[in-house]
């Protein structure tokens, strides 16, 4: 590794780390610096997004920029923050220690933003300080004197407006400098804890071969961060350092010395001096625009109405706007299938490609428009600052089941599709809260359950037309069941499996900002790309397995017949298991095949019950022939199969059962183990069976 302040060797691209508080415009600056030259992935072993991009110096030389997760402090409280800390301290084997650090701060809120900068200056690495949102600071009447700050810190300080690209050239010029000065900001460690810092520093330097400054910075962190978050990839502390830390903490505890308080307090004292010197506060600020908006948005009456209106708007757009691209994608997939059928000779291989691979992946791709729209809105809510308000308003209700307000948006998104909902849980800091939210999110009735509900309601009600109140009533019942189920299980998990301290609600309410459309769209595309890339292989694999199970062995005369296939055999095999909830082996086949995605139940039921000319791909397909076929289905002893009670039992089963391989793939990715998706599948499907059993048997007992 090159020495601090020196240019990296000519053979190696210099590595910059971009760090800053949340909501300070870090992503906007990263996008502006790197354009579309970004790679998004994951840090190995943790579900923290790793974003690396390439920027070019003023001389056209490439510079690597790592966008580290936003944090308020290097004393990490979440896996994301732990990654930021570990990369900066050079504790991650998978990521090179950055040569230089770009610290971005919100100029309108200098004091709190400088806290992180102050910790980073301790690292003894070359730092460039970027003062973002200078326009907003000026508008609020503040005068931030860049020169004074630069003089006091001794490092380049660049005034910048990342949203409209101002200050980028100056920043790139600073980044192109072959040498960067180290900070000359002197900061005295409070006397009470200085000996401990020295001792820890020596132990870290000797035991782990760290450079003196990094060892000192780490020693200081150990004293702030009482319950160090360790994540996969972090190097553990050595025993001697742990012992020194413990003995000092015991000594201080005996003397009633609040070491962490002293340390943080002295940093803020130093920052207070810096800020007083550099910032000329404007006239006492009256109500800012954000205050005025908040007076309405978090109002006891208007707040709820706005929340409901925003959510309604999102759901309306998902269901109306997504329809066109979904139809279009459906048509493209059908065309692709036809194309393949034209080119390839008929046979098993062709069927594997069309009915296995294309059909399976097609199912997921069809849902992509919904997923994209949802990601777009989630990004928009985050970018404008409304997301934090929604969490603020909902926190009280969410706290009843042991979650905090941040779980609200992920759970709500899951009504459209659990996948973006689960991916949106990354904003939840506490790992146990996050896991609880992931575990219950798929219980929210997603849009893929709608076709199943509709078919069952059609089959349930005698006559050709379902009276509207019945239809709406049953639908609402299903949504209510899923919602209460989700909250009930969240409550249960937080009290048993994932027991922990009550979650905190210490959250910044950032000022409202106009969203950067480019950032929102880029974020949406990256998220969707990650989903397709990581979930795609699992989905493809399961699709092919499902195809195989429904195709082989073939029926008499080599004709594909689902009755004779493994899936048919499996349907027969599970019949004893599902008979108590009113299902026969044919419904069993539907359950097995709809594991690909719930709405597949409709098309596979059409196949099993030999409905001719039924096109399940057509969203407006007439359900009448299928409904008639279901009404005429009987048990071998002549009893009707789809009694209203069985229809109800089946709907309840679909409310709770985990019938979605894409969700399983995403949960596997987000929890980084197979343990949780397997647990989730078992508890959801188990609950589904038990509830269907109760309803079916009770209904039978009552004579239905």
């Amino acid at each position, binding site marked *: 590794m090159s020495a601090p302040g020196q240019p990296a060797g000519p053979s190696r691209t210099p590595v910059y780390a971009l760090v800053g508080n949340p909501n300070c415009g870090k992503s906007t600056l990263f996008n502006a610096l790197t354009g579309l030259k970004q790679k998004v992935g994951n840090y190995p072993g943790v579900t923290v997004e790793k974003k690396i991009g390439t920027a070019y110096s003023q001389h056209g030389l490439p510079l690597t920029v790592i966008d580290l997760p936003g944090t308020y402090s290097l004393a990490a409280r979440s896996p994301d923050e732990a990654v930021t800390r570990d990369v900066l301290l050079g504790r991650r084997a998978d990521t090179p220690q950055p040569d230089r650090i770009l610290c971005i701060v919100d100029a309108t809120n200098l004091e709190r933003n400088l806290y992180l900068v102050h910790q980073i200056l301790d690292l003894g690495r070359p730092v460039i300080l970027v003062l973002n949102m200078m326009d907003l600071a000026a508008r609020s009447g503040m005068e931030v004197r860049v020169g004074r700050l630069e003089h006091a810190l001794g490092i380049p300080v660049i005034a910048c407006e990342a949203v409209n690209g101002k200050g980028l050239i100056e920043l790139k010029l600073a980044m192109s400098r072959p040498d960067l000065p180290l900070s000359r900001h002197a900061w005295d460690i409070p006397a009470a804890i200085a000996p401990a810092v020295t001792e820890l520093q020596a132990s870290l330097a000797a035991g782990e071969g760290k450079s003196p400054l990094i060892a000192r910075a780490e020693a200081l962190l150990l004293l702030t961060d009482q319950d160090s978050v360790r994540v996969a990839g972090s190097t553990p502390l050595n025993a001697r350092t742990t012992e020194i830390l413990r003995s000092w903490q015991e000594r201080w505890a005996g003397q009633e010395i609040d070491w962490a308080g002293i340390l943080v307090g002295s940093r803020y004292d130093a920052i207070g001096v810096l800020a007083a010197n550099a910032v000329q506060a404007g006239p006492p600020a009256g109500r800012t625009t954000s205050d005025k908006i908040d007076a309405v948005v978090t109002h006891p009456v208007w707040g709820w109405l706005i929340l409901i209106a925003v959510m309604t708007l999102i759901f309306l757009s998902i269901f109306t706007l997504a329809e066109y691209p979904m139809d279009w994608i459906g048509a493209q997939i059908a065309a692709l299938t036809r194309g393949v059928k034209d080119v390839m000779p008929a046979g098993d291989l062709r069927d594997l490609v069309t009915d296995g691979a294309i059909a399976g992946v097609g199912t997921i791709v069809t849902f992509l428009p919904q997923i994209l729209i949802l990601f777009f809105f989630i990004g928009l809510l985050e970018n404008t600052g409304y997301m934090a308000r929604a969490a603020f308003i909902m*926190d009280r209700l969410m706290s009843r089941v042991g979650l905090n307000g941040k779980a609200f948006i992920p759970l709500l998104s899951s009504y459209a599709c659990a996948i973006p909902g689960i991916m949106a849980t990354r904003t939840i800091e506490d790992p146990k809260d996050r896991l609880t939210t992931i575990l219950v999110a798929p219980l929210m009735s997603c849009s893929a359950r709608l076709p199943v509900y509709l078919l069952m309601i059609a089959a349930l009600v005698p006559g050709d037309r379902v009276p509207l109140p019945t239809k709406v009533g049953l639908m609402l019942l299903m949504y209510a069941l899923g919602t209460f189920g989700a909250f009930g299980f969240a409550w249960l998990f937080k009290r048993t499996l994932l027991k922990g301290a009550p979650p905190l609600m210490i959250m910044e309410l950032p000022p409202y900002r106009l969203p950067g459309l480019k950032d929102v769209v880029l974020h949406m595309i990256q998220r969707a790309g990650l989903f397709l890339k990581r979930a795609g292989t699992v989905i493809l694999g399961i699709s092919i397995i499902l195809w195989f199970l429904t195709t082989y062995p073939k029926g008499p005369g080599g004709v594909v017949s689902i009755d004779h296939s493994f899936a048919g055999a499996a349907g027969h095999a599970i019949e004893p298991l599902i008979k108590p909830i009113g299902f026969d082996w044919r419904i069993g086949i539907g359950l097995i095949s709809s594991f690909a995605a719930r709405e597949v139940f409709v098309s596979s039921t059409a196949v099993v019950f030999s409905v001719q000319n039924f096109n399940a791909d057509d969203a407006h397909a007439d359900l009448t022939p299928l409904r008639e076929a279901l009404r005429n289905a009987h048990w071998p002893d002549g009893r009707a199969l789809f009694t209203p009670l069985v229809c109800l039992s089946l709907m309840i089963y679909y409310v709770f059962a985990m019938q979605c391989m894409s969700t399983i793939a995403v949960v596997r990715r987000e929890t980084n183990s197979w343990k949780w998706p397997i647990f989730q599948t078992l508890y959801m499907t188990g609950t589904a069976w038990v509830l269907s059993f109760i309803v079916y048997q009770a209904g039978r007992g009552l004579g239905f």
Partner: protein
Amino acid sequence: MAPELKLSELAIGASAVVRAYPKSGEAFLRLREMGVLPGTTVTLVRTAPLGDPLEIKVRGYHLTLRRSEAAHVVVEPAQTAG
């Protein structure tokens, strides 16, 4: 001096200076790093529609915390309101 006042008991719109809060506990470590320290002036901006959490203004930005945490923060009302 008035009896001990807690941050959770502050009237909406009132400012106060933080005097003390527990030394340990994750909530207080975090509050500290977010700049809420003994001697810092905070203003209670509003409560959420259901009465919890609280929104305070500190060092020029807005922060939320639950009543259960605010009930442990001892404050001293500022000399002049606002």
